[in-house]
């Protein structure tokens, strides 16, 4: 492409991303960009002046146009302490205390009122998936579907929900009734997925007793999100946390979409090979955004494994990684700054757009 063609390409690429003011993005190839930004900016100046005159923000960005359709947080919560056991509350506060959370979040399950949380989400996102939790077996805690339903009704365009399921009873038998419950969540409440927490339920995700549940989710065409990652809860044993066991499930259910929450920390490498082998798997980067160098290196690895297009932005808020906007912004700019400073390859505009929403939109069909 010649100089003028490149300029024209950039010139006409307007994009408005809610909730920011109108922007004019100038997309140029990198040598041209360095000339504009580091050099005289001749080519850009008249264009910028015109845009500024029209009240449009001018951004100089990477060398490919943004394709971002929606910003999606694929993993958020809504809490109420009345549904939780004392043991679970103590465990979660202790866990939050190990993270750079605000002090309120270390004392209150819901650190801000529900309305404020909704505003936080609205300000930063186009879609948010609210994840239910059922860890009755070991932690005596269940956030009921009804409670999630009330919340998502507050902004049905923004909010979607997944139901939390505890699939085994105290004697390690499969709870047949969960099949009906999941069906009800989907058909009656319009929920879009299931959340399982093997590490907090003390079971392996590839336990064959769970297979009827996986079949049900396949029938209903809904994804399952797994907490297969570390946990600092006492009684949540790490042997159940290693995401490697999901390989067998993915091979046995190649059509069932399954997600690994929290980038399967600390097993990012295992996640990458799991995704490379199984195209039905995805990863969310909720909570671990607190460890930016680790996430950046995980994303580098995902890029090298060719699986970056199945990694989704997520926060795990409101208890952690709040305000959401701050973490959206980190993905937009902070990630590449970190990579650049470390001498690592940077991510293209398309890859960042994918991470922030496009990947989830495509893969989950939002």
């Amino acid at each position, binding site marked *: 492409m010649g100089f003028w063609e490149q300029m024209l390409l950039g010139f006409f690429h307007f994009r408005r991303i809610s909730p920011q003011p109108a922007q004019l993005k100038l997309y140029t190839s990198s040598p041209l960009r360095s000339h504009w930004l580091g050099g005289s900016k001749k080519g850009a100046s008249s264009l910028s002046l015109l845009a500024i005159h029209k009240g449009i923000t001018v951004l100089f960005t990477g060398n490919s146009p943004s394709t971002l359709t929606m910003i999606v947080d694929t993993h958020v919560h809504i809490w109420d302490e009345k549904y939780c056991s004392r043991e679970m509350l103590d465990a979660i506060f202790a866990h939050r205390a190990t993270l750079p959370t605000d002090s309120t979040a270390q004392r209150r399950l819901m650190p801000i009122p529900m309305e404020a949380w909704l505003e936080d989400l609205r300000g930063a996102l186009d879609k948010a998936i609210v994840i239910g939790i059922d860890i009755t077996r070991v932690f005596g805690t269940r956030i009921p579907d009804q409670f999630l339903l009330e919340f998502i009704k507050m902004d049905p365009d923004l909010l979607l929900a997944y139901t939390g399921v505890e699939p085994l009873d105290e004697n390690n038998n499969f709870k047949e009734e969960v099949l009906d419950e999941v069906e009800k969540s989907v058909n009656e409440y319009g929920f879009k997925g299931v959340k399982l927490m093997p590490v907090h339920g003390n079971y392996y995700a590839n336990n064959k007793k769970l297979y009827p549940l996986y079949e049900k989710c396949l029938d209903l065409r809904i994804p399952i999100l797994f907490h297969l990652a570390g946990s600092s809860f006492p009684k949540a044993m790490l042997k159940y946390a290693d995401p490697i066991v999901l390989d067998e499930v993915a091979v046995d259910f190649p059509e069932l979409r399954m997600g690994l929450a929290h980038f399967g920390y600390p097993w990012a490498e295992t996640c990458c090979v799991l995704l*490379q082998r199984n195209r039905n798997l995805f990863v969310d980067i909720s909570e671990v955004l607190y460890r930016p160098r680790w996430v950046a290196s995980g994303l*580098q690895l995902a890029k090298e494994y060719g699986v970056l297009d199945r990694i989704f932005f997520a926060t795990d808020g409101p208890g952690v990684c709040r305000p959401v906007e701050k973490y959206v912004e980190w993905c937009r700019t902070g990630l590449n700054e970190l990579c650049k400073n470390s001498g690592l390859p940077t991510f293209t505009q398309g890859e960042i757009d994918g991470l922030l929403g496009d990947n989830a939109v495509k893969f989950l069909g939002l």
Partner: protein
Amino acid sequence: MRWQNNMIIDAHTHIWDETYASKEYLEEALSHRKRVGDVDPAATKHWMPLPREAWVAELKEAGIEKAIVLAFDLTRVFKTKIPDDFVADYVKEYPDFLVGYGSAEPLDDVGKFKKSVLDDVEKAVNEYGFKGLKLYPWYGNYSADDKALYPLYEKCLELKIPVLLHVSPENLPKAYLQYGTPLPLDNVATDFPGLKIGIAHFGSPWMTECCLLMQKHPNIYVDISETFYRPTQLTWGLIMAKEYRVLNRILFGTDGPGLGRPVKKTVNWLKTDLNRLSRGSGWPTFDQDEINGILGANAARILPL
């Protein structure tokens, strides 16, 4: 052979022939090549992407002075087998250049040890002059530390040949990741301290585990074949190997002719790109002895060739 410090050994190559592959395996292997990175388009269509003469010429032109060629027995799950005698014929064509390794599928359909493999291995060594054995636990759905395999390890010890194991996953369905991790080799290395045990593909993605295993067991080594498609990961792995002080048991390999080509580019990655990446990241760099070690000196010291 007389060894000079700057000679290059490719410790991991193959010879392919589609008549020996099941349709299922072949499709998966080609699909893996498509996904792994920038691969010769011919290699995404044909298991053997170029004639063997051209392949050997490419190796030699890149400065390789010895290449280990591995037989490939995946009978149990994938009904695919590049047999020892096929490899032996190929080695006979280039006796000064190629070193053959046999391959065995040690368990039968019901998970019982196949006693016949003991004779096969003996034949491979005594008749074909092979210098090692390749096992594929990950493709065979068995764990490398399955006690049923111990007679085979004993046989290798007796024949004084190394065992190279594929404990590192690719894209194949039906091959579960739980059999793909290098960690079970801890048990094997403990029970057979005299047996040389190789981990192919740097146990990718579990390079950290490999470093730990090598630190613990002086009889374990790794080859870095196939990992060139993920340069940041490989650089990081080599930095870790340096920090664990096990870099002198890291061996160069391409995994060619399907992957790791052009060979010259792969060799040059180690010679120049590796240090460029390390320096750019502010990490320690590798000196000439360390790089020569990976390229050939380590293999010459560790392996019978």
